[in-house]
């Protein structure tokens, strides 16, 4: 039995409004999920289902109101800022929007060396590391002096991936990392994600609304609905033969990119909805 890298146990996240006496909004209602070292776990669901909140809870950006998030044997659900600094070496993030995830007033070298400098790496060492990182994500070496606005969406996402890789983390939370990208760009960025994962053995929590994307990259897949995980298991199983009614609906709703196959899918969907 392989030891778990991340073990999320019955996590709840409640956002409290400003009004006193009103019950807060429960974004996560007791979610459990685990990730083994070097594994890609896909988390799929629609907007507002809580999938991003789970990612943010793991990153320490959302308030965990109950449950535990155990990373390598220690509970990080309520880690202090000092502990977070330590955890930063192991858990990193790639956000959805490559436009707001990079500070427009910093150049690429500053962006990439920031996490290194925060961990006390020397400036000279950080500079060398930036070169390696740019190389790892297939960006030109002279990209360092340029600013984010000079790059396209796909290139910006590569920069964000490089930043996540800077500290050689064990887990990267990828929050819809390709959904803001064009189709062909998205395919190339996904390939990069897979290549890096296979080369470095980093684990991903891969969050997406797109079943096909999640299926493409994940070993195991969890389907989330209204703050709960409704189905969880082997990637192929969950995405090809879903059991839960919601997972079925989700699969049937995605149009197949071929007219005749889609016509068939449409009929299947109608039958499913009529039966359900």
């Amino acid at each position, binding site marked *: 039995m392989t030891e778990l890298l991340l073990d999320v146990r019955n996590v709840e996240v409640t956002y409290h409004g400003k009004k006193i006496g009103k019950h807060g909004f429960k974004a996560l209602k007791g979610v459990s999920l685990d990730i*083994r070292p*070097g594994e890609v776990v896909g988390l799929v669901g*629609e907007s507002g289902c809580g999938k991003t909140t789970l990612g943010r809870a793991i990153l320490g950006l959302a308030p965990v109101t109950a449950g535990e998030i155990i990373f390598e044997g220690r509970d990080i659900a309520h880690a202090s800022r000092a502990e977070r600094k330590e955890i*930063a070496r192991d858990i990193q993030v790639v*956000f959805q929007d490559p436009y707001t995830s990079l500070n427009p007033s910093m150049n690429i070298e500053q962006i990439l060396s920031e*996490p290194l400098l925060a961990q006390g790496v020397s400036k000279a060492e950080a500079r060398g590391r930036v070169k390696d990182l740019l190389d790892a994500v297939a960006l030109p070496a002279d990209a360092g002096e340029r600013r984010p606005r000079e790059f396209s969406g796909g290139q910006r996402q590569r920069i964000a991936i490089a*930043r996540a890789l800077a500290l050689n983390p064990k887990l990267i939370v990828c929050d819809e990392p390709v959904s803001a990208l064009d189709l062909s760009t998205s395919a190339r960025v996904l390939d990069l994600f897979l290549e890096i994962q296979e080369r470095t053995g980093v684990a991903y929590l891969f969050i997406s609304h797109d079943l096909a994307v999640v*299926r493409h990259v994940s*070993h195991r897949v969890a389907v989330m609905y209204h703050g709960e995980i409704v189905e969880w298991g082997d990637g192929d199983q969950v995405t090809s033969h879903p059991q839960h009614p919601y997972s079925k609906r989700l699969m049937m709703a995605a149009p197949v990119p071929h007219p005749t196959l889609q016509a068939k899918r449409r009929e299947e969907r109608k039958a499913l909805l009529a039966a359900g």
Partner: protein
Amino acid sequence: MSDQNTITGNAPVAPRLALRDRSLILKVLTNPLGVFSAVTVTLFAFIAIFADSLVRYDPGRIDYLALNAPPSAEHWLGADGLGRDIFDRLLIGTRFTLSGALLAVLMAAIIGCTSGLLSGYFGGIWDTIGTWFTSVIQALPGLVVLLAAAAILGTNLYLAMFIFGFLLSPSFYRLTYVIVRGVRNELYVDAARVAGLSDLRIMLRHILGVVRAPIIIQAGIITSIAIAIQSGLQFLGFGDVESITWGSMLSEGFKVLTVEPLQLLWPSLLIAWVMIALIVFANTLRDELERVGARVRRATRKSMTDHVKAEAEDAIVHPEPDRQGELLLDVDQLEIGYLQATGKYNVVVHNTTLTINKGEVVGLVGESGSGKTQTALAILGLLPAGGTILDGRLVFDGIDLRNIRGKDYDKLRGARISYIPQEPMSNLDPNYTVGSQLIERLRVVMGMSKSDAKTRALQLLDKVGMPNPEKTFSSYPHEISGGQAQRVLIAAALSCEPDLIIADEPTTALDVTIQAEILELLRDLQKETGVAILLVTHNFGVVADLCDRVVVMQYGRVVESGAILDIFDNPQHPYTRELLGAILDENGAARGAYVAPTAKAGK
């Protein structure tokens, strides 16, 4: 300050209020107004610092031979009622006036910005305290407080300005607070937190830079207010008798207004000059920050034809012998350009040719920047400012769309060509109920009576699958979901029984399960009404679901067009193949099972 707050848009090209590079300072200095204010500020700063060496006489020296003397070689601007040299007193006055104003602004900026930064960044209790304090300060009548302070604490210029600075701090607080709140939610701040940066470091590196420029602008305005208030206090006689300021000179000049009106004029001129320069400086800096690119020159007739003609790479057109229906929309060799700062046109759509027959559903497919939306907007006659159709034909059912303008276009758009947008929510006015927005359209375009329009609107809501049309009718947009909003907009698009609907990514903003429902609805309604649809999308699944024909665009050109099965099964153009190849086939192999890392040798 609201105009500053709106600038934090999320469009990739939106300018951010940040002193990003040296070129900004250069831009301000090449602007004539910028030069004026920069010269003024430098000049008065110089005078304030070196006033002692610049004066020719002791400014306190009383010359009984020169009481109220007119301007002369000895006293350039004359002498005041005690025979003191006015020019010298203005120089010395500059020092006290400006340093007093500066003290007030520094106080205000330090208190306001620090508290704004803290409460904006940390929120919670900091937020509550900050807001409470600023509200209290703002509730105090400034001038009365200053007069009271002068009465109790004595008339010290610097003390008054110190207190005034405190009273001015809310303007800096609110500005900083609003900007910091905005930046606080940027993903790069989250990324910095995940990277383990301390709050202090995040504030210094990521937040201060964005706040800096607006604060400089604000400081310019506040300094000029401080000068005005200070002069006002001195003029009223509540100032410090010891220090020479423009305000006290104003007061002295006023006393001899009827005898020597010039004595009032000199300090007034200086006050006005400096205040104008400061405000002009603030405005110039703001203008330059908000300017996108260089100043735009007017289009010339020559530049319309001067743009580089695209090299015609012919699109691959699959023969479509089975096409039915008569021609409805004919777009032929369309070229769309945007006027550049240089006065030339940047052509975004080249030689685009596409046709839509009655009752057809045509998919216009491409990635961002392919020109698909521009083409759609050109058909609607709704190209954004700066965009023009440079060349080509655009004919809808025999009507040349390039020749009609204004009201004629409005009639066509409302009644015969309608539009379904990408973002349903932002296309409904939050101030009006769904029903009233539907009725308005029916009354204006179809000339219906109010009651007829209501009946029709309810029918339409029923038709687009609203479970409870009456309830939706009287709902406000925020009370319905995104999918329902899109249904409402489809109802609106159908309301005037159009011949053509232009749907611009109608399901992109929706969840996949909602998307399936909307596609279902569009397909049913299309079959029922026989309306032609131009479906602009990047999603081949949506195309496969709905379309009869496909037009593929890349870099503003049509690269391939044909019947749907021809495009999917027999794509010819490399780009079409690349796009279809990039689709993740859900029937293909999944990732496969997890292999424990121990099985792989090392990293």
